[in-house]
């Protein structure tokens, strides 16, 4: 019989990254669509300025996060898998309505279900790079140099701007679906709470350390005693097992 245990699943940086990114994407969408002419809120000039600043913050955050992903090995969480992909999709389409159990188990080493892996990976390797590349081109296709305005080999802003706009629509669609899907955890708010506090009650077989077929190395320590756990600071480096 599965047993529920409190697990420290999202570490401090991870949560910082997630919420900062969420805030930046919200701000970028708000200012970006104002620049696009969809509505007036900040005023065009302020919107451009805020958008550019938020863009730099996003880029810096992304650089830090790439570093974090590789130093912690967390990048392995995003390796795509076809295992249970169909089951996960079927769960969202049918199972969830029949109160069926989640087909995949969320553990410290497999935080993401196969669908999430696929979607988040495509954000990381497709949508974000396209948005950053087109965004930088947008900013710098004309640039002042030695008292003159030089131009990159981009004839017009058109292609860049259209790609950037399409990316923005895709991201908004993602955010809408994402916001809804966080209510599909064990309880309506368990996923949200986990991303805020870091702790989540996860199903686990007694005494068994969850294993992943894709993540070879343990990326964190399972806290066996949830009652005492908060007293030990899980982010403390001294508590990390030697890897």
């Amino acid at each position: 019989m599965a047993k529920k245990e409190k697990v420290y699943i999202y570490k401090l940086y991870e949560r910082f990254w997630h919420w900062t990114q969420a805030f930046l994407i919200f701000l970028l969408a708000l200012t970006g669509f104002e620049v696009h002419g969809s509505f007036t809120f900040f005023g065009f000039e302020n919107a451009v300025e805020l958008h550019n600043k938020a863009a730099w913050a996003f880029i810096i955050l992304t650089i830090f996060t790439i570093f974090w992903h590789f130093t912690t090995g967390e990048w392995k969480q995003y390796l795509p898998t076809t295992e249970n992909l169909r089951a996960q999709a079927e769960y969202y389409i049918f199972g969830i309505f029949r109160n069926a159990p989640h087909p995949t188990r969320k553990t410290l080493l497999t935080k993401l279900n196969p669908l999430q892996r696929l979607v988040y990976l495509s954000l990381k390797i497709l949508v974000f790079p396209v948005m950053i590349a087109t965004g930088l081109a947008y900013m710098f296709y004309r640039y002042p140099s030695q008292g003159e305005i030089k131009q990159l080999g981009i004839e017009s802003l058109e292609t860049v701007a259209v790609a950037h706009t399409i990316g923005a629509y895709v991201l908004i669609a993602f955010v809408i679906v994402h916001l809804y899907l966080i209510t599909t955890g064990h309880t309506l708010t368990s996923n949200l709470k986990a991303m805020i506090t870091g702790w989540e009650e996860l199903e686990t077989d007694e005494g068994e350390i969850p294993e992943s077929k894709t993540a070879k190395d343990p990326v964190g320590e399972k806290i066996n005693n949830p009652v005492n756990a908060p007293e030990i600071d899980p982010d403390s480096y001294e508590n990390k097992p030697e890897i």
Partner: protein
Amino acid sequence: MKNTVTFILSVVVPLIIITVVLRDASQDNKLLAELREEYSKPHIPSVDHSKHEALQRDFDNPHEITATCISCHTERGQELLNSFHFTWEREDYIEGRGVTYLGKRNLLNNFCTGIFSNEATCNRCHAGYGYEDKNFDFTNQYNVDCLVCHDNTGSYEKLRGGAGYPVPDQDFRTIVQNVGRPTKSNCGYCHFHGGGGNNVKHGDLEEALLTASRQVDVHMGVDGGNMDCVDCHTATNHVMKGRYYGVSSANTRRATCEQCHTAAPHLDQMLNTHVAKIACQTCHIPEYAKVNATKMYWDWSTAGELEDGRAFELYDDQGNPIYQSIKGDAAWQTNVVPEYFWFNGTADHFLISDKVDTTAAFLRINTLFGEASDPESRIYPVKVHRGRQPYDPVYLTILQAKLWDREAGRGALWLDLDWERALEEGMKYLNRPYSGQWDFVDTEMYLPVNHMVSPASEALQCQDCHSRENGRMHFVEGTYIPGKTTYAAVDTMGVLLIILSILGVITHAVIRYISYKKAQNTTTA
């Protein structure tokens, strides 16, 4: 706790530092301060002409005045024979035409339509004496009028209908003893009155500039730079910088903002990048004709109407003539928002020998070349003067009417109000074929706006162009303007994607809720 501090120190603080460092450091606009200093120095003449012996006398022959000038300025006479103020034509290369010699001397316009057969009155503004008809001697240096440009008393007057000769019996002794560097009123004597009255033609050049504030013109405003025309329109050997594209065609010898302000004058680099495609004038001249009205429309076809058998005039509430029997209907406007066009500094002109295309909506008296894909082109503010003027529906050429004469009964429209005779006389003078039939054609003339630069605080703001509706760039094509340009396909697909996402989520949530309720009922039942 300790780790939260470590986290803040290692992640949040570096992020803040990086963000702060990436911001532009603010600077002072040193260049602008230097320019202000340079141009606030008064011009100190090197010569006091009242001390010259040759000028201690009275004059009654204007040619003699010129000869006296040349007696000291020995080479200036020949020099003037090559000045465009005297030649009224310039050698230019025009794409599709080759090398041309065009100017006021031989070009059409859609104001008074052209000087042909009307030279004696139009050429009051020629920097010469006696340009009364096409037989004027352009090679005689004693035909140059030095005083119209160099009189510093502000009293020199040229005679109406005098072909450039001055009003006789002026105090020439005082005038010649007070010659010097041209002032605003020298240039304005002609350039403010193009089209036959103050501010009629250009819209950004008018008498008000002699006394205006810096709100009207930041450079010439008396409480601003109080600069003279020649501060920017500098000259070498009497050949001045500056082009008026009603008569010019080439992208050379232009007086530009950049000659003082550089090509990257803003402290804000975002604004500097705009300079590549937007002319300075576009943002810095939000409107023209800020004081007195300028003529926007001139319909010659209604000229000739009489009231009780007499010529009459109607005025608008500002006192501008909206109908004159001698000139037809007119529309005037103040604080005019310019129209915007791609322009690369080259232009073409409709010549008197060109064929009218009657299938076109209107005829371009001059054409400003330029397009978005041309790296030389920038978006310029332009005064578009629209008109209706006579043409020959058989030979398909623009017709030239004789407008003026010293006496009635010799076919001048303004005296006899007879189109048939006026056109006949005009075309006979030109010695060009005329079928005897006439009709009127809609024409447009494009005059780039360069003056009445507003203070920076009143320049256009981003949203003036970057907006979906009614933006200034509404009719500018060929370039992606953020906030203005949209592609229906992209936005439709995008909005559809968002709507589908929301609908999907709502549907899913509703089914979830219903099945949850059902499950509850099952367990309770």
